[in-house]
Structures are given as C-alpha cells and as structure tokens.
C-alpha cells in the first residue's frame, strides 16, 4: 500500500500529525516567534525590576516563597514604568496577532504546497496571503461574533435568572456547562475558519484569490464529515491544553522556588504544547480539505491530457510529504507549454479554473 492510500484512510487526525512531523520547522518558527514575543516583554521588565531587586534583601521574599504582597508593592514602586510595561505587553500581543496571521498563512501554504518550510518561504507566503486571511478574519469576526456573541448574551441572561434560584456548586456547574456549550460553538467556528484558511491556500495555489470561494465550500466539507473532524479538532486542542496544565502542575509541585532555569524550561514546554496543538489542528484542517470530495471543475473546453501529463490522484502525497487537492497540479509536474499543446484547435484549460459555487456541490 503506498502512502497515498495510507492518507486516504479517513484519519485526518493522524494525517495532521504527520504533516506536523514532516514540517517540524514550522513549529520551530512559531515557537521562536512566541519566545521573541516573550523576551520582548520580559527583558524590559527585567531591566526595570533588576535595579530594585538584585541588591535588596527584601527581594528574598520573592525569590524563595513568592510573597504576593511584596509583588504588589513592587508593581506600586514601578509606578508609571509598571503601567508602561503593561501597556507595552498588551501592544506586543496585538503585534503578535498580526504575526500569527502571517505564520498561519505560511503554515497552511507549506502544508498545502509541500514546499520546504524555510522561514523566508513561510513569511513570504504569509505576506502573500495576509490580506486574504485578514478578510477571512473579518468574516469570521462578523459571523462568529454575531452567533457566539448572541449565545453569550443568552447565556448571561439565563445565568442571571439561574442566579436568582441556584447558588454554590449547582450554579457553578450551570455556569460551567453553559460556558462549555458556548465554547464548543466557538470551536466550531474556529474549525470552520481553519478549513476556510486551508482552502484559501489551496485556491491560491490554483491562482484564485477570492476568499469567498473558501467560506461556504469549507462549511460544506465540514458538514460532510462533521463528527470525526470536530472531535479530532477538539481532541488536539484538549491535548495541547492538557500539556500546558501538566507543565503548570509540574512547575508548582516539582520545581523548587529558586530554580529559575528549570522553571523556565517547564514553562516553555507548556507553551510548546499549545503551539504544537495549534499547528496540528492546522494540519488536520489541511488534510480534511485535501480529502474532501473532489471539487468538480468546469472546463471551458474539453481537454484530454497526454499520458505524460497525468493528474495525480486525489490526496496523493509527493516526495516532501505534501497533500494536494485532487484537481491540483504541482508546478514541477507541469510540462512545458509546447508539450502540453494538443491537437490544433484544442483549447488548453489554463489555471485558474473558474469554479462556480454550484460546482462545489458534491
């Protein structure tokens, strides 16, 4: 059984993981971005607190047992500097979000194109697809905002009424269950837009820049195989957060209070855990899109490719472990135009293929 058949095993979970493993450098770049962000916030913080603490005996209240009031007073003494630090940290997160869009687009591009995940390529792809992803984000913000926001409002209303009757554990479980319900809906939207992002890349590889082409087709794909995709997606997310919580637990129970390097390693493992899960989820989204029913393409003219020009089977993997859409042709496999020209009078269907929404019906 060749690898192509293995990929056709309807297990996007494992496929996503294999994509992640095959492109480990993506994880490296994403993690480095996270570390850079962390350092961008942490080093100014250190430069502010170091002069206060490094020669002070009172700092021992923070080095050993972490005295909460000492930390509170330290932030008071930082005064405006502390406010600046908080503001800067918040602004950095906003900048990071922009960078996260670049990385997301780059990740999907690498998964979809099979290119080697060099940083330059990832960033270039990120820049190329930035506005398409940004438009998707706006769509997502509007659609998910309306529905999740509406659900949140309903939840608030329900809890307000529940609060008049229930207290303690009962109310907590009500609040928790309703929160989980809203979160599950939010996860649905996240998955949908992950699929849409993956499809946007696939369309982009076909030269189609229209974002709207990815929105509803990806929803249809999700509808086709909702249960397995959604549960796999949730499972990956849960694994990531479980890893973070495990590291947090280890930090608290096993790392000595003064062992800063060890604490740093454990903390970073936790961060790595959620980053890994996120990239894995993107791999899953790419696989789901790739394994979806082939999208019929309306050719303007009949074209029968010569034997040397055979289109790969759906979901076939190339040597770099990439997946391709069933109707996709890698640039390396495209023969020179002169070879591809058939009989005189036969039109060649050139990419991008125009695709109608109705054509996406499967």
């Amino acid at each position, binding site marked *: 059984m060749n690898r192509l058949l293995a990929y056709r095993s309807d297990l996007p979970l494992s496929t996503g993981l294999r994509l992640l493993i095959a492109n480990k450098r993506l994880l490296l770049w994403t993690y480095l971005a*996270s*570390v850079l*962000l*962390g*350092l961008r*916030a*942490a*080093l100014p*913080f*250190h430069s502010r*607190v*170091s002069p*206060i*603490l*490094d*020669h*002070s*005996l*009172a*700092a*021992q209240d*923070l*080095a050993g*047992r*972490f*005295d*909460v*009031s*000492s*930390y509170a*007073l*330290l932030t*008071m*003494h930082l005064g405006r500097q502390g406010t600046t630090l908080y503001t800067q*940290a918040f602004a*950095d*997160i906003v900048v*990071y*979000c922009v960078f*996260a*869009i670049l990385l*997301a687009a780059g990740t999907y591009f690498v998964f979809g194109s099979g290119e080697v995940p060099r940083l330059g390529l990832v960033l270039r792809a990120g820049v190329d697809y930035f506005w398409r992803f940004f438009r998707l984000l706006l769509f997502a913000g509007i659609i998910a905002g309306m529905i999740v926001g509406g659900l949140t409002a309903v939840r608030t209303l329900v809890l307000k009424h529940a*609060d*008049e009757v229930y*207290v*303690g*554990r009962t109310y*907590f479980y009500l609040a928790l269950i309703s929160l989980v319900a809203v979160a599950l809906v939010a996860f649905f939207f996240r998955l949908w837009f992950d699929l849409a992002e993956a499809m946007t890349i696939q369309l982009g590889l076909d030269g189609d820049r229209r974002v709207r082409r990815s929105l509803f087709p990806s929803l249809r794909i999700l509808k086709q195989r909702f249960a397995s995709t959604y549960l796999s997606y949730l499972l990956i997310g849960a694994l990531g957060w479980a890893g*973070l919580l495990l590291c947090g637990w280890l930090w*608290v*129970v096993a790392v000595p*209070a*003064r062992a*800063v390097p060890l*604490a740093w390693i454990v*903390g970073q493992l936790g*961060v790595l855990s*959620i*980053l890994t899960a*996120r990239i894995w989820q993107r791999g899953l989204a790419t696989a789901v899109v790739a394994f979806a029913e082939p999208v019929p393409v309306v050719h303007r003219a009949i074209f029968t490719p010569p034997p040397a020009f055979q289109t790969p089977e759906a979901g076939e993997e190339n040597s770099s472990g990439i997946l391709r859409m069933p109707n996709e042709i890698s640039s390396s496999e495209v023969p020179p135009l002169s070879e591809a020209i058939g009989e005189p009078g036969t039109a060649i269907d050139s990419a991008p293929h125009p695709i109608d929404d109705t054509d996406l019906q499967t």
Partner: protein
Amino acid sequence: MLQVRRLFAALHPAVLCLFLGLLCISTVWHANAQTAVATNAPAGQPLSQRVVAYTLEAKVNTDKKTVDATEILDYKNLTGQPLDTFPFHLYLNAFRPQSSFAYETHLGGGIRGAAHDYPKEEIGGITVSQLSADGYGDLTQAMQFTAPDDGNMADHTVMQVHLPKPLAPGATIRFHLTFHDKFPLSVARNGYKRDFIMGGQWFPKVGVFWHGTWNCHQYHATTEFFADFGTFDVKLTVPNRYTVGASGVPVGEQNNGNGTKTLHFYGEDIHDFAWAASPHFLVMDETFQSSMGPVKLHGLILQAHAHLGRRYLRALKGSMQKFNDWYGAYPYKQITLIDPEPDSQMYGMEYPTLITAGTSWWAPESLPLGLETTTEHEFGHQYWYGMVATNEFEEAWLDEGINSYTEAKVMAALYGKATSAIDLRHATMSDLELQRAGYLSDPDYDPMTRWAWKFYSASSYGAITYGKTATVLTTLEAAVGEPTMQKALRVYFDRYRFKHPTGTDFLNTINEVSGRKDLQPYFQAAVYGTKILDYAVVDAASEPVEWWKPQHGSSRGPWRTVVAVHRKGDFVFPVTLEVRFSDGSKTREHWNGADRWIRYTYVKNAKLVAAEVDPDHQILLDKNFFNNSYVVARNGTASWKLTNYWMFFEQCAAQFVSWFV
C-alpha cells in the same frame, strides 16, 4: 381550704420535696432570667448604662421583601439637661438615588462597589407612618427630615421630632412608631438576595446625645453606625419555612397557624439589633467556654455551603479564644454567625452578637483570606464596635482600624505568621502584609482621624482606616513591645467597654500603659498626619584605605566602608542600621532620623557584605522595603524569577488571543 389540706395530706413526702425543689430552681432561674437573659454578666447585672429600650413587633413579607412593624422606644434622659428634640436615623432611606449615600457611591465609590446607575430593584426605604409619645400625643406632624452633614434635604436618612415640651433630665419618654420597610436588592450590607433577607438598620433608631449635643449623622457611602446601649425585645413574624438568626438570644416561638410563625428575641447591653432570614439555612451550633461563662456559637449556614460550616465555626471559636486570652471575655450568651447568599453585599458585616461572614462553595483552606479572615474580622468587631462602641462616623479607625490590627494578630496566631491570608505552595501572604499593602495603595490623602465621609475617596478611606491603622499599631507595637501593646488594649477594653470612647482615650491609654512619654510625635505624624515614612540605604561600598595604591590581589586591607542612609519621607522615626562585613562581623547603629541623611564610615580588615535599615523588620510603616538594604553581591534570582513569570504569562496570553485570529 379543707380540701387543700386533705390534698397535701394525701401527697407522699418525697413528691412534696421534689415539688418544692423544682419550685426553688424555677424561682432562681426566673430571678436570673429577669436580670440577665442574654449575657453572662456576674449576678445578672446590666453591663451597660441602658439609655434605650426598644420593643419591636415586625411582620416580614418575604415575597415583597417588606416589613411592617411597630416600635416602642423608651429613652431615658441621662444627659443632665432637658431635651426637646429627638433625631432618628432612617438608614434604609439611603437606598434611593436622591440620597447622599447614593451620590457619594456614584461619585467616589463605596466600600462595597461604585454605582453607575440606580436600578429600581435597588431602591429601598423606610416610611414612618405614625409617631407619638406618651404624654406628648401624636407627633406625626412634628416629624421633619434634616441633613446635618451636607444639607441634602432629599437625603431622608435622618429625621427629627420637636417635642412640645422638653424632656426633663432623668425622665423617660416612651415613643410609639409605626413604620414600613422596603428592602433593596443587596446594597451595602442590606437588603435581600434571592430569598435571603438581611434585616440591618431596619428600624428608626434614635441618635446619641454625646459631648453635649445630638450626634446623628446621615448615612454616607463610607460610614457605619453609632448608637446608645440598651435592650431590644423583638418579635418577628415570618413564614414557617424560614429560619431566622438575630441579635440577642431567642426567648420564644409561636406558630400562628396561618403558615407563619412569630419568633421572639431579646438582647441586652447592645446598641443595635439585626436579623437574617433564609429558608436555606442549616443550623450548626457549638459551645465556647469564655471566662465569663458558656457562649453558644449559633451558625446559620447555607445548604450550598454545608461543607464549610465547621470551618466557619472553627475560625469563630479560634478567634473567640484569642480575644478571650488577650483582651477580655465575650460576655454575651450567644454569637450568631450568618452565612449570607453568595454574590451579595451582605457579607462581612458586624452587628451586636450577630455577624455575617461570606464564602464561596469552592473556597480552599489554603486561602484563609476569605472565609476565615471575614469571620475573624467580624467577630473582632464584637469588641471594637460592639462593646467598645466608638463613633464610627467620626473615628472609624477606632473600630475598623484597631480591629484590623487585632485581626492580623489573631490570624497570624491561628493560621501562620506568613501564611494567614494566602497559603499556597509557591505563593504566600500574611494578613498583616495585606493590611500594609492596602495602606500603601493610597497612603497620603487623608489622616486616620478624618471623619469617615470626608475622606478623599472610598479607596482612601479603606486604605487609611483599615490598612494604615493596622500598620501604625503594628509599628507602635514594635516600639513599645508586644506584651505592653496587648496590655494596653486589654486596659482600653476593660475601661471603655459599653462606653463611647474617643481616639484620645485610646492614645492616652497606650501612653499610660506603656509609660512612654515620647510617643506623641509618632501619634502626631502617624495618626493625625499624612507623612510618609521611607528610609533608604543610598550608598554602601568598601574601598581600600590606601585607595591611591595599585591593586595587588583581591585581599588588600584595611578597607574603608561607607554606608549612607537617606530619610526620603517626611516622617521622622528612629531607625537601626545593621552593617555586615566579610569576616562575619556586624555592627548596629541607631539613628534618630532627625536629619535628612546620615553617613557611617568603618575601617576594618573586612569588606562590606550588606547594610540594612530596620534589620528586625519592625517598621511596617516604611513605604518601600526594597530600598531598605543593599547587598554588595548581586543576586538576580528574584528578578529573573519574576521575569520568567512575566514572559510565560505574556506567551500564554498571546496564544489565547491569537487563537481568535
């Protein structure tokens, strides 16, 4: 008569003896009951000068959250002068948007939250429909609202009545009032939440004639209460399904046969009466043996918090023991602990012989900051407010502040000196440090002695009244010694319980017990002033005495060590400086702090290791502990540890936010 003689002749002598014995016991019991029902007072004597006697009969409508009641008030004129005006507090009228309380809460925040709007369910009020007095007739038309503090005539939290003729000194007047309460939805200690009702400040309460005039302030966002001691005979009619806890002790219960019951309570030597009712209370009782007699700990715990009931009582019992040992006995026969509905503003409030605490169902034992601290604090108020009944409007530091100081001490004794607020594996905090941090959040807007509603803001009120007072008294304790401070508080309690002392009385007691004549400057700066205390080691280094010679190796000697201390704040306080050297020796210097700075120079065959101001960590008023010391060898553990936290949380926050994009 003959028949009676025959009857006695027929009785067996043993039965007769039993009958006579029971009669004696009953007589003795009744004799005691008449003199001391609610206290363990020796020989049943009154513990206070009982100025007032309230008799209240109230019907509680638990559906509408209203009360319809009648009040009989006997006021004994012990002022030594005729009285022709009587002011009454109508506290519930504060819960209207027109009140000074509402405006102040909107403007500067209240101690239980700021108001940005005024929803109609938070409107409450009290309406006195009739007022008369024996010998004076109907005085309903003579009632008028006043606003002695700010002139807001729409406030309606104080009304007064002019008598047609003055009440003579030594005479007693009996008022009859009929009133209607409408409780608000959980505002500032009061109202209802779900089907829980807190009856606090629910009846017209006469002011205190104090220092030659009536003292009857309006209800403000940051003020509490002040009243005369007396007796309270209260009957509350509630639905049968409700359990009620109240001040005093229960003395009777009657089923009315219409789905309601009437509960009878009696309190004496107290100055307020509060009650709480809920259909969800579980009763958890214990007994504490105080040095004046047994005290019933009457816990009314919400069913949702049943698993926390014993923790409440353990905290209460522990606090009672410490107060009994350190300051004096709790003289009442009962203390009622109410566990109010969560998410309400009725948590953490004190009334005579009744306290409300507050918790969440998940409250871990490693966070005494919630359940235990609140229970201790409110019990402490039985002493500093309940018995030593200071004027909470004008000198809030005497109840909240002293109570915060004793809270820190009791919590440290019960839950650990460093862990009495937070006791997690990697994070700790003591109650005292919490108080200090509270003080330093707003350290210099107001003096401790400012009248409560005149503070710059609610935040400043909290910081100074609670945090600064506790910090000032702890620093004072370091100066005079812990046993002396404890003795001073005991004397203060013994001398002023069931009275209305002032701040001067308190400070004079400390002066007297400590025998110190030099504390006045400290009181002036710390209590009456807003000066900041901050000492810093600003210069600390060693260099060779022959500094001009080239260095040969690292151990040249001798060394000249210079240490300079800077008094950065205006608060002058004597301090100790400890200087440690590389040969293990250390020296201590005592500086009166009068000048702005001082420099010490040492010539030794050892280099400086560290210099520290206040090496025993006694001056908690010092604003900044980090600059109190200088260690020559850099130790970056703390800064890198915090940096690691900062980085980790930044990364996690970024991941969380970027999930949405």
